């Protein structure tokens, strides 16, 4: 098997396994760190899909930004007792129901994905997508870009307000 297939299976396995760890682990810190590896796996997949800019954004923002944010969140919301942070257990019945539901959703999605024909067109992989993304962002999607900036401003104002202690 050529190199790409091996890489695909490696990164795919990386994502799925650590994704499962995030979800099933009892310890929050373990979950946070396994999230890190999931993101790496996804970045790798992007590279395989010749979305170089996206891979870097994934690493920079997701891992650098959001993951750090989540870890700070975990720090702040667990009492510093040094005790292994348990996330408490949920009743057996709920687990079973949730599990069943998830398996059902996964099965449906896979069944649909595998059986339907998608919009495909063959194309030569670009060496770098950065140039095209840049132009598109500032021409066709200019409004979305500005709106996103407005959104972030609102998020900052809101988050600051909510998180601020009483002054």
């Amino acid at each position, binding site marked *: 098997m050529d190199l790409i297939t091996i890489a695909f299976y490696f990164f795919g396995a990386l994502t799925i396994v650590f994704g499962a760890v995030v*979800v099933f682990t009892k310890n929050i810190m373990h979950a946070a760190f396994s999230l890190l590896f999931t993101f790496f796996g996804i970045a790798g997949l992007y590279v395989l899909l010749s979305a170089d800019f996206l891979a870097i954004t994934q690493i920079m923002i997701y891992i650098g930004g959001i993951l750090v944010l989540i870890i700070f969140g975990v720090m702040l919301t667990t009492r510093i007792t040094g005790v292994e942070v348990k996330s408490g257990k949920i009743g057996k019945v709920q687990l079973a129901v949730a599990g069943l539901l998830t398996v059902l959703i996964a099965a449906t999605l896979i069944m649909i994905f595998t059986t339907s024909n998608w919009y495909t067109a063959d194309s030569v992989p670009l060496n770098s997508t950065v140039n095209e993304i840049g132009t598109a962002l500032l021409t066709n999607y200019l409004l979305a870009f500005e709106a996103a900036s407005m959104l972030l401003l609102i998020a900052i104002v809101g988050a600051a307000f909510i998180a601020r202690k009483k002054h």
Partner: protein
Amino acid sequence: MEIGLTHYLIISAILFSLGLYGIITRKHAIMVLMGLELVLNATNINFIAFARYGGMNIEGHIAAIFVIILAAAEAAIALAIVLNIYQNFRHVNVDEVDNLKG
């Protein structure tokens, strides 16, 4: 066999389901947020995969970028609110926060 579009879709589907499972079962609010991040990442895989196999269509990338931006914004707000809950309830167990019902 050659890696095709469906493989990526399968990974995205699995990731999506795991994310949902995380949201539903985890008691700790932050764990729910993590589940949420997984869901959004699954979406991104979808976008990039369709872009790649749909004639190197750049729109998928742009969509993925916007999803990342919004994920960041949402995470920020969600964490701020979770902190607020922590202030008020001294715990962040989602299923204990249920006095509004009926």
